């Protein structure tokens, strides 16, 4: 009797959460599709975004994301490899590094925005630019990416490490050919978390990339990211709601597309190397 009640309660929780998510998604979908057209993707915004499209905003978003990922991916993998493979002799330093990363992972994005503004925009003189924003996002997604990849590498069968060493293989070769490919699922998961967080980011970008909605000509121009655009339309522009919904629809689809693309690239790159047991 108690068990049955408990079961009902738990499935009630699950139903509530799932239906809330479906509601949000359905709302975005229905309202978004109503305003969406293909030309929405390819035209400039007019009348503060109430009409016209989001072409420059999409371009800015892709710039910011590419800069963030191109920076965070190799850097993050490097730190993860160091932490899991080379830090054994410097336990104190690596413990400090881990704690720092865990704290940084929980820092609100607006703090990253302020730091990015002070460091990239002002100190390094990059101004309000896509580059400042991309680098700030890179910093923001690094902690979680590093920790996810590190735990993936640690989970790799230690007998492969010893096997590679016993064959006189350099550690770099073992890492490159065996350990990193074997840690692929974790790297993929870290990437998905990073892409999701970076694409949805608003606060950190307002201070670093700015919110000018014209077409950027180079990464040193300022530009408005999609999430910032949605915020602006729904908060500052009366009558911008339907355009905001359409932009939100594009944002959701973009995240799904990017994740699929990243996963398949990763899969493809590693598949020639390892079989996942």
């Amino acid at each position, binding site marked *: 009797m108690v068990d049955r009640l408990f079961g009902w309660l738990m499935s009630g929780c699950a139903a509530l959460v799932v239906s809330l998510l479906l509601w949000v998604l359905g709302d975005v979908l229905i309202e978004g599709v109503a305003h969406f057209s293909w030309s929405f993707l390819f035209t400039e915004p007019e009348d503060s975004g109430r009409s016209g499209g989001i072409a420059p905003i999409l371009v800015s978003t892709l710039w910011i994301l590419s800069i963030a990922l191109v920076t965070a991916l190799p850097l993050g993998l490097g730190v993860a490899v160091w932490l899991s493979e080379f830090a054994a002799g410097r336990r104190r330093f690596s413990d400090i590094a881990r704690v720092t990363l865990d704290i940084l992972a929980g820092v609100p994005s607006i703090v990253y925005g302020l730091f990015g503004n002070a460091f990239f925009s002002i100190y390094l003189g990059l101004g309000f630019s896509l580059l400042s924003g991309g680098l700030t996002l890179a910093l923001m997604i690094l902690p979680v990416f590093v920790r996810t990849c590190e735990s993936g590498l640690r989970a790799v*069968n230690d*007998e*492969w490490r*010893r*096997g*590679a*060493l*016993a*064959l*006189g*293989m*350099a550690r770099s*070769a073992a890492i490159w*050919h*065996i350990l990193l*490919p*074997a840690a692929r699922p974790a790297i993929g998961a870290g990437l998905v978390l990073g892409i999701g967080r970076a694409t949805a980011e608003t606060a950190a970008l307002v201070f670093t990339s700015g919110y000018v909605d014209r077409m950027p000509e180079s990464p040193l121009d300022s530009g408005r990211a999609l999430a910032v655009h949605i915020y602006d339309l729904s908060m500052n522009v009366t009558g911008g709601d339907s355009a905001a919904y359409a932009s939100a629809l594009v944002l959701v689809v973009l995240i799904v597309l990017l994740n699929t693309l990243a996963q398949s690239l990763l899969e493809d790159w590693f598949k020639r*190397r*390892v*079989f*996942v*047991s």
Partner: protein
Amino acid sequence: MRVRDLEVGYGDKTVLSQVSLDIYKGCITALIGPSGCGKTSFLSTLNRLTDHSDARVAGQILFDGQDLLRDSVDTLGLRRRIGMIFQRPNPFPLSIRRNLELPLKEHGIRDRQVRYRKIEKVLKDVGLWEEVSDRLDASALALSGGQQQRLCIARALVLEPEVLLMDEPCSALDPISSGIVEELILRLRGRYTVVIVTHNLAQARRVANYAGFFWMTERVGKLIEFGLCRHLFEAPRHALTAAYVSGARG
């Protein structure tokens, strides 16, 4: 190979001390004794795998007249000459072919044809060629345990080492696979110098020319007796050895 006064410890705990023995070229040397008396630690000093743990090693191991424990020794080159087989088969999560190709590539063999010839030769050597020649590009992890262990032996042999260290190579295998691997080890005699750690006394007796018996005294592993395998089993000089090989202790 001559080992003199070898001592191995972890932190302030000594696990093995005063080990001196000679390993003869082309012969099979079996190391027997109960678990935890330092046999595996001993084995991993011979290819300097101890470098990658927090072990400290003292003493001398002469190989070709050179002390291989010296810091200046090129460990990657050393491990090409001294291969190692582990207790549990550990093929990489790669295809059968890549498992053998990777170490060759890493040791600078750029010519694909040369690599393929070497791969075919070792697979025939370990008796796997017939079984896998039609699926070289399939995952090595799909092989049975015994096949995986033979693949690991092939992977060590493909680098043409002089010495092969084997850490209980049959203990994780079923009796039939174990028998096949044992036959393979016997075929290696004469061509390679083999040092094998085993808990299987009958196996040590069947394959080895020389044998060493390790035992814990005062919580430290020591080499109690070393000599011709036959002598060690039939006419042991030490009472501990006699008790162990007869099954009375251990």
